């Protein structure tokens, strides 16, 4: 998941569709995010490249909508409903995820195992 500055970022992504759960007045997704361009990337335990300032999934609550949809801890979120998540601040990412009007969020996430799987299938 490393990137070369100036070049488009390429990654193998998985489409995940999460249906928000209504909990009283709130709509919850069931996971936590960390990262952002205003945060310190070296503290990120999930990133391979410690200068990666993307948004990462730091916790997935058990049985929640995110886990059901297939989101895993350590995933890097590339897009939320078409909005880019690779160069946003932490707060912007949170806002994009928690829009009150939307019931469904469609994420594009990437993880290392996806790349490995694709590479392995290409080798055969």
């Amino acid at each position, binding site marked *: 998941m490393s990137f070369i500055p100036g070049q488009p970022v390429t990654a193998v992504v998985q489409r995940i569709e999460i249906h928000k759960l209504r909990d009283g007045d709130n709509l*919850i997704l069931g*996971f*936590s995010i*960390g990262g952002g361009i205003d945060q*310190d990337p070296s503290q990120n335990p999930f990133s391979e490249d410690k200068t990666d300032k993307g948004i990462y999934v730091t916790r997935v609550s058990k049985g929640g909508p995110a886990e059901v949809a297939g989101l895993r801890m350590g995933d890097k979120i590339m897009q939320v409903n078409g909005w880019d998540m690779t160069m946003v601040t*932490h707060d912007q990412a949170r806002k994009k995820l928690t829009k009150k009007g939307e019931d469904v969020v469609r994420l594009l996430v990437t993880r290392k195992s996806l790349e490995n799987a694709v590479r392995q299938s290409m080798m055969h």
Partner: protein
Amino acid sequence: MLSHNTCTVRSAHGPKATFSPERRQVLVQTGQGNQITTRLLRPVGKSKRACVRARVSSGLMFDNRKPLERILSSCAASYSIHSGYSHHSNRSRGSNKQSERSSRDRHKSHSRDSSSRSDKNVTISASSAQPQQPDQGSAPTDAQDDNWGETTTAVTGTSDHSLSQEDLAGFGKETEGPVEKLNCVRFLPLALILALGLLVLVTPLSFLVLPQLMWPERLQPCGTACEGLFLSLAFKLLILLLAGWALFVRPARASLPRIAVFRALLGLLTLLLLLSYWLFFGVRILDSQDENYQGIVQFAVSLVDALLFIHYLAVVLLEIRHLQPCFSLCVVRSTDGETRHYNLGQLSIQRAALVILEHYYKDFSIHNPALLTAAKSRAAKHLAGLKVYNVDGAGSDAATAQSRAKIAAAARQRDTSHNELYYEEAEHERRVRKRKARLVVAVEEAFTHVRRLQEEEKKKPPGDEMDPREAAQAIFPSMARALQKYLRTTRQQHCHSMDSIQAHLAFCITNNMTPKAFLESYLMAGPTLQYTRESWQTRQWTLISEASVTSPLRHGSEFQLKSSDFSLVVTSKAIPHLKLSEEYVHPKSHKFVLQLQSETSV
């Protein structure tokens, strides 16, 4: 080695022994009725050799140097004795004389185990001949004991290497050196300086006075200008003399091996100046009998000006030039490796040595030879362990081959002396700490007995008033024993005499010091200046240097300062040229951001 057998110990004097083959013991009864049980450590039957281990029933330890008779007869302490003696079949006849022999040189294979114990052991070997009186410490040789060497067990822990109290007490006193006889050479520089000073004083005055004396009628009178010149001459001369006195007429700090180059040069320069002025005076003024008195006075004033400038040169060369540090000198004491660093300017080697010695007396802790004996004994043991025999006849390279063989063998050998060292040091540390604790408590208690008399109490009739010395003498006995034991454990007892301790105690009491302040000079080894003059041991130093001692210090120059017991090895390094650059920081440029690691749940 610990298989026990019985043996006979019988002696013509004092102890009588009974032999009991059934019991594996021998009972030796001494004159005073104490029983000594001895156990043989080797089978006695067929071999002629036996080792006896004896223990006094009272359980005290005994010094191993005394002959057996004294040990057995006085029984002042218990001891453990290893003895080997020849055991003949007709032993029942014998007055088997037992004489002690310390045989630390003759080690056996299992001797290492016994020597690793810190017991004091003695080897007693009996000769079947009957010398009537044993010698004090030496052992009469056993004629019949051909193979006593094999069965004699080892011996002597530390007693052979420790110094007795008398030896140590003599340490401080031996190298007092010859009494300072009046050395005329010491005063030669001072005499020369005084002579030069006198010449300097006399010359301008004589320049002024001589024309007045020799041709007074022809001199032109000069008015106020001359008077002004007289005044300035007088004051300049006064200032010159005072400055010269301040700079040059000082008691010599030390006698250096070679002349001080700068001083000699300056003296020569002054002399040259004076001579040239006299020459001019003689030729131009005396011979031609110049009438212009003002000119003569100005001549004299110019001389004094020149002399003042020479004095300025002297100040710069002698005092100021070496203030800026250029070299860093590393001084290492050869006996215990204590190291200090000093920064000096550009000095000659002899002057640098002088400065270092002045610092030595205040910075280095006092040289204590008693602390070095342990290392020497270890070194002796390393060397004594191996002997090389040349079986193939003498070769030309025998020496180097031997030494190499020794080194190789020593490397292969599994040496457990490090183990010994570790435990010895741990034990010593523990002992020192125990003694220190006792000492601190004793001193604190002693100090509580003394109290300063308050002002109002002084007016009342004196009950038991004492001055500090008496007060010190009064409380000293309660702490004397603990202090003496502590000093003995840390091997400092020769540095402090009873008088000095009492004087120090009186000093502390006078100045309201706490017990801790009093003890500090005994707990830590202080610099040499702190102790009385007797323990300084030397004021005679030898400068050993490859370069000439008047040559200036350079990077990498080395020299040694040798005294009678140790030497100081000095190496010099130039202080590197430091490059300082500047970075300007705007006062408003300090801005900070917080780094957050927030995790939001969505």
